[in-house]
């Protein structure tokens, strides 16, 4: 069964239609890349899947593990295994990262009817993951993302992904604002999470990221639709020829 099925999705933001009948099917174990020029609707898709307010779905549906995703609150989606790695992770002063991680993890576990993780177990788990991502302990004591560099913020997203173990990871422009070294660390973290039980949707403007996270499928979005799908070769082709051809086609 497909993990994520997006069918004929039409989405409006303040009276303007951004997605005009988008279709996408993602199976467990697959890594999909969604590419496209600015304004093609890539980020809108990621926001709608995660449940961000302010988007109106006028037609179509999204099924996650066969269930109606659009009927769920954002926190239900998270607890059921949807994870959005934000393009611009927010800074939350006064909420220590450790406290945030524990509150979030326990909220998800509670929703699923699981026991809360004991403090020693939780700390052990976070420390392991943080170490593998080269995240120093003092970062975890600071407010969520407060004073973090761009690279640190993205690593903090990957840290959460590793901690929550979602079944669908959506990475929204993970490469934006990262230098090569920071990108490599974040990508290594993501690759370590690739698994037959999990799918990933990698949203990116540039092919560069796909050298580090190699996709099974590549989709090109233009003007609110998927206009072409292929394998990783398609990304290379785009790098050479640009998006203009699809702008015309759409």
């Amino acid at each position: 069964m497909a993990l994520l099925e997006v069918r004929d999705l039409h989405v409006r933001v303040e009276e303007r239609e951004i997605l005009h009948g988008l279709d996408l099917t993602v199976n467990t174990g697959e890594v999909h890349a969604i590419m496209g020029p600015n304004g093609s609707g890539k980020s809108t898709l990621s926001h709608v899947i995660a449940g961000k307010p302010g988007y109106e779905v006028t037609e179509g549906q999204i099924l996650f593990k066969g269930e109606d995703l659009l009927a769920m609150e954002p926190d239900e989606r998270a607890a059921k295994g949807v994870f959005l790695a934000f393009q611009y992770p927010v800074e939350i002063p006064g909420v220590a990262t450790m406290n945030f991680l524990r509150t979030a993890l326990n909220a998800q576990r509670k929703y699923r009817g699981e026991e809360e993780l004991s403090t020693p177990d939780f700390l052990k788990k976070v420390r392991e993951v943080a170490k593998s991502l080269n995240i120093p302990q003092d970062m975890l004591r600071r407010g969520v993302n407060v004073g973090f560099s761009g690279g640190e913020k993205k690593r903090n997203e990957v840290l959460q992904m590793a901690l929550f173990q979602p079944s669908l990871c959506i990475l929204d422009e993970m490469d934006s604002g990262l230098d090569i070294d920071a990108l490599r660390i974040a990508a290594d973290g993501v690759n370590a999470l690739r698994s037959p039980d999990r799918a990933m949707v990698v949203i990116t403007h540039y092919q560069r990221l796909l050298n580090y996270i190699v996709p099974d499928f590549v989709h090109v979005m233009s003007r609110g639709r998927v206009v072409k799908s292929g394998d990783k070769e398609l990304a290379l082709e785009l790098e050479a020829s640009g998006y203009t051809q699809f702008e015309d086609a759409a």
Partner: protein
Amino acid sequence: MNLVLAKTDTGRAVGSVFATVRGRLPGAGPVADARAEAFEAYERTGLPHRRIEEWKYTDLRALMRDVLPAAAKPDASALSRAKAALAQEVIEGAARLVLVDGAFAPELSDLAPLGKDASVTTLREILERDAGSDVLSAAAIDPMISLNTAMVTDGVIVTVADGKTLDRPVQIVHVATAASASAFTRSHLKLGKGSRTTLVESFVAAEGANAYQLNDAVILSVGDGAELSHVRLMADAADAVNVSSAIITAGAKAKINLFNMTRGGAVSRYQGFVTLAGEGTDLSVNGINLLKDKQHGDTTLVIDHAVPHCTSRENFRAVVDDRGHSVFQGRIIVRPDAQKTDGKMMTRALLLSDEAEADNKPELEIFADDVTCGHGATSGALDDSLLFYLRARGLSEKEAQALLIQAFLGEAIEQIADDDLREFVAAQAERWLEARR
């Protein structure tokens, strides 16, 4: 025409309350004279209303209407209900002074932790000896303080000797057990030179207490080089009125840390008048209002920099839900001599519903030319982008709000130096948040 009518009405009602009790109030001679004089001062305005600038946002004529008859002396049933109400509020190891419906209750109090470093008497004892008119002489700076002077029945007077540090807090607990009655209390804490004390004042309601009115005044005299931490926790019954005043005078090189949290009561007003009368004193004032339903909570502070080289910091946070109304008025006065004054005031309000309201009135009255003074204010809803981030990580709407509100309040609560006390206050704020979930 309306004004005259309103004044006559309230004036008569309170006048009759005073006339009824004055013969029973402790103290004769100079004490009785001080009372009569104070009542006259009160009567010049009657219950403060919105046309009195300092009471612009808290119109007691509309919110209180009348001063209720004085509460009876607590009986055995009242004391046992008061005892039950204490359980939640008592701070472990603190010296405890309990006032029930305006009367000191020795059977509920525990003075042992004070040892020999501090002495305690009750105001009633002093007044009954026709002494203590000095405690009643607090200038007629506000009509509700004048009314307090006229009507006060009891309170505690704590004196900390020079150079002594009280390791455990002194906690004054005001317990209301009466219904539709008023209580007037006044306490005095004298901190000797170089002494250190933490004073906690808690305002709570026992079972059966409702629609009561409390008017409390506390006078804090902070000696040279002394350190005072004052934490107030207002958790009155949902239909109660609490008007409390703090009159604080500090000597030189003192350190004063004030904190107030209002989470109960239908109408609450905390007014603090601080005079920095000695050079090199640091004052930090922090406050929190947690309001819901139709609660009205007012914090009004007047910081008087009378001498040079003092600093004052005010940091006030309000969280207002439903149709709650939060008021913050902060006045900083810098006298002509008070050069090198450093005074800052920041107030922030979080409005959790469309009908929630927060008024903020900063006033700087600066008569010296070499000073640093400033104020800032923000007011608004929780940040949607932060809420969505938290919800996308699995927190429910209420949980996400609670986490952000805790962070918002944290900056004020963190200013409480004593670890146990800070946690105690944080836990009370958390309980308020949990009740919203």
